[in-house]
């Protein structure tokens, strides 16, 4: 293969290296208005009255919008109905600190900011609830209707009771993970303007097609009259699915008739946009003394925050993945998503799986310890393999999980051998394994369109609305199209940013752009190629089946002298009046989960990973230093190894942050960590000295050129690998993240008297 598997530099790298890539906040259209949002200072309150008189009189204020001024529906929600529950501007009440109440457009940011302070909101404070377990109680304050329960997912098979009775060992524990922040380096920003009867929103979004729908619904326009132009993205990680800013900008632009720009401050970005759902997971697993897992009972409570957003889909994914990549005959998963008066939870890298992977992998370690068995052996005994049935009854056809475990075992053994011994500093090695379903969880579909046109000089254009968020999808799609047609990558131009150019495409989430949009692009490229080949066949007097394209030349397989360049074939198409256009859509066939027992085929493919961590724990301070990290992954055929390694390195870094330092802290509904000096993410000095990535390159027949997905897989097993390494070093178990120095120090102090315990 000429383009697949090659370390082709990102197609946007030069622009980015030169500082020429244009991000949303870099846009400047001269005379513009600037938007600001007046936000709720209360976690839960009825709005009695809003007085904008003073703000209206401020010189330079051009518009103030309240809920009543919204021309269309005052509702958004990425999943659509019945989970579209969030007002763009609060109506009768506010449900979290930071919820938008009014929008201001003014001649400068300073004036707009000043105006927010001149608007007076009369609140009637309501009792608030911040803890999801509290919120589930009958007498808890209610955010929306009669119950705070947003949604539930149940998965069951076999007989759990029976399974526990047959078990020799039962381990029970509760695991908690906190709210996390995406902390993309680029705060949310955008510009909106009306051009004729078309609303144009230029914005950093990872859900451009859905963004168009949400803006149109809020403005009361047909979808066709809204155009979303995605700007270069300074990271997304799930957080830029939130279409609130796009709607706010469009409302102000519609009202004023002017170009309106708005950029969130870092504080707004951290404290008022969607976050990773905090999770409480109760695990009870039983196994035989031979190490066969016989029963798993799991309860998951996710804190939805004030609105549903992606929550119900995150919950389903968490439930499906909750028991890990293991064959378990008797299983019961009960998962619930609960409203509280905190910022809404939404999509974030791993979509609920990091929380449950932390739980299931810590549980595997504990079982192995109780059994006196090597934890990798225990995993190998139970791991999914070809032909395994998942917890939802799906039969797996491609699984290289055991290979990842075997390779990890070698690495872990090597590291253990070479581990340094120091007095107060203990070294430990831990491993964790997991799986990840590629694409949105059924019944959420994955419709993705792509249009490929071979131009009359033989160069190629791909049009789609697949959001490049920094992960490299534009480059990977160019490689796929180039490979399918048989041209070099630099002949392929990708137009992925403008909804006026490309067809509807799934959001950039669920690690699926390579697998799903890649397949749509490949099919579109094939259609275009077929048109070209048909014409070439006519000219060369050769059957289609005898033709192939190699290095830009179409030739007969039987007679290599019979050949024509792609350029010349394209010119012949022009003479014949043929547009060389291929269109395709792809949506992998899935079977949504049965609401009673959660059985179904929620994903078309799964990726697998095992990760190994070596850490040093300073037992005098509790400080953890990651020393080495290895990732062995089955992600199908790797389209671009450099980009894939980059995804892995970044996923490991984010996972280390989650393991050791990251937590959005909320005090009475207010985020008290709204800056990057309070919400800490890893710096270069926090990273392991050695990082190894291995891809098994196991061909996946349903993916383009054998590819699956990676983006989130990179992140999900990092936490349990680190926690297992800390345990290996110190014998303490961290059951609530993050594993800060303070927490470890306290646990070590507690542990002291009974250090010699088995």
């Amino acid at each position, binding site marked *: 293969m000429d383009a697949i598997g090659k370390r082709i530099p*990102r197609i946007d790298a030069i622009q980015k290296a*030169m500082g020429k890539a244009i*991000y949303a906040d870099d846009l400047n259209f001269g005379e513009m208005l600037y938007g600001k949002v007046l936000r709720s200072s209360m976690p839960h309150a009825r709005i009695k009255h809003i007085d904008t008189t003073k703000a209206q009189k401020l010189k330079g204020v051009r518009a103030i919008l309240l809920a009543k001024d919204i021309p269309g529906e005052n509702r958004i929600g990425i999943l659509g109905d019945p989970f579209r529950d969030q007002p763009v501007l609060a109506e009768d009440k506010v449900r979290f600190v930071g919820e938008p109440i009014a929008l201001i457009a003014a001649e400068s940011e300073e004036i707009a900011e000043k105006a927010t302070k001149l608007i007076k909101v009369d609140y009637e404070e309501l009792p608030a609830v911040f803890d999801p377990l509290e919120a589930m109680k009958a007498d808890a304050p209610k955010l929306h209707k009669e119950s705070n329960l947003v949604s539930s997912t149940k998965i069951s098979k076999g007989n759990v009771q029976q399974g526990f009775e047959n078990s020799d060992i039962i381990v029970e524990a509760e695991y908690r993970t906190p709210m996390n922040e995406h902390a993309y380096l680029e*705060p949310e920003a955008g510009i909106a303007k009306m051009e004729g009867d078309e609303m144009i929103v230029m914005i950093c979004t990872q859900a451009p097609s859905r963004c168009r729908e949400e803006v149109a619904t809020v403005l009361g326009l047909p979808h066709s009259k809204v155009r979303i132009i995605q700007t270069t993205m300074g990271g997304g990680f799930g957080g830029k699915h939130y279409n609130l800013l796009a709607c706010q900008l469009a409302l102000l632009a519609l009202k004023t008739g002017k170009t309106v720009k708005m950029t969130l401050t870092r504080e707004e970005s951290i404290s008022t946009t969607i976050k990773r759902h905090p999770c409480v997971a109760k695990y009870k697993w039983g196994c035989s003394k031979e190490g066969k897992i016989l029963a798993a009972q799991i309860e998951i409570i996710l804190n939805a925050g004030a609105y549903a957003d992606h929550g119900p889909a995150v919950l389903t994914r968490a439930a499906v993945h909750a028991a890990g990549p293991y064959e378990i005959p008797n299983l019961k998963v009960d998962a619930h998503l609960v409203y509280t008066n905190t910022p809404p939870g939404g999509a974030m890298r791993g979509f609920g799986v990091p929380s449950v992977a932390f739980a299931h992998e810590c549980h595997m370690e504990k079982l192995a310890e109780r059994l006196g068995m090597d934890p990798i052996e225990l995993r190998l005994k139970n791991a999914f393999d070809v032909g395994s049935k998942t917890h939802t009854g799906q039969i797996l056809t491609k699984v290289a999980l055991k290979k990842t475990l075997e390779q990890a075992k070698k690495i872990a053994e090597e590291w253990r051998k070479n581990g340094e011994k120091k007095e107060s500093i203990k070294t430990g090695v831990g491993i964790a394994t997991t799986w990840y379903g590629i694409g949105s969880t059924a019944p959420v579909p994955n419709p993705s369109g792509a249009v490929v046109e071979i131009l009359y000089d033989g160069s190629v254009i791909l049009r789609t609305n697949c959001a490049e968020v920094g992960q490299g999808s534009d480059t990977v799609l160019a490689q796929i199209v180039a490979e399918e047609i048989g041209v070099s990558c630099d002949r392929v131009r990708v137009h992925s940013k403008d909804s006026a150019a490309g067809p509807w495409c799934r959001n950039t989430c669920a690690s699926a752009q390579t697998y799903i949009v890649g397949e749509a692009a490949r099919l579109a490229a094939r259609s275009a190629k077929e048109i070209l080949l048909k014409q070439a066949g006519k000219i060369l007097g050769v059957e289609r089946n005898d033709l192939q394209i190699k290095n830009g030349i179409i030739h007969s397989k039987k007679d290599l002298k019979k050949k024509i360049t792609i350029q010349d074939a394209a010119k012949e198409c022009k003479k014949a009046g043929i547009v060389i256009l291929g269109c395709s859509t792809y949506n992998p066939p899935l079977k949504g989960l049965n609401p009673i027992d959660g059985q179904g085929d929620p994903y078309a493919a799964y990726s697998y990973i095992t990760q190994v961590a070596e850490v040093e724990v300073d037992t005098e301070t509790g400080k953890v230093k990651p020393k080495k990290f290895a990732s062995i992954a089955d992600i199908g055929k790797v389209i671009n190894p450099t980009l894939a390694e980059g995804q892995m*390195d*970044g996923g490991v870094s984010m996972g280390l942050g989650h393991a050791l330092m990251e937590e959005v802290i909320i005090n009475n509904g207010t985020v008290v960590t709204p*800056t*990057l000096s309070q919400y800490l993410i890893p710096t270069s000095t926090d990273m392991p000295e050695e990082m190894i990535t291995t891809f098994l390159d196991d061909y996946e027949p349903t993916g383009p050129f054998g590819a699956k997905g990676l983006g989130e897989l990179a992140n999900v097993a990092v936490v349990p690998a680190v926690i297992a390494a800390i345990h290996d070093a110190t014998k303490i178990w961290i059951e609530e993240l993050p594993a800060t120095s303070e927490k470890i120090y306290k646990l070590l102090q507690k542990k002291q008297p009974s250090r010699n315990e088995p």
Partner: protein
Amino acid sequence: MKELNFENPTTIKFQINGRAVQVEVNPKMSLLDVLRNKLGLTGTKRGCNRGDCGACTVIMNGKTVLSCLVPAIQANGKKIETVEGLAKGEKLHPLQEAFIECGAIQCGFCTPGMLLSAKALLDKNSNPTREEVIKAISGNLCRCTGYKKIIDAVMLASQKIAGGGKNGRDRKKNTAD
């Protein structure tokens, strides 16, 4: 002592990427405001506006500064280098080449600041150790790359600079297959 005036604009003169400029600033403005809003040099990014993230890193008189924390008037008479000044026309700086070759760029938002922190290091120490590189970029947050390929790229750039194309050392560590 003259009282600080926070309303009236002042004119400052400085060198930006080797070019002399004169800008009217108000005393509340940061150097970052001037670069982005007055000079249209949007390569330098605003990630937090309070000195936490390093995305706005530029070089002032040979030293890295967080331009969001530097009052614009402090730039008066200084030499400022930004990402826009790294390449000579179409000829990329070895750091830029190395960042591209190594895959050190993902979303690219931290890239300009990273490049400037790395340049300040290499200007003083053309043959740094990995540890020195890690320290030099420790004030620049990156959420995409895990820093590994960025560190690789700075090491490669130092080889490129040392080799100067003469002994071909730069070709040895080319990560491309």
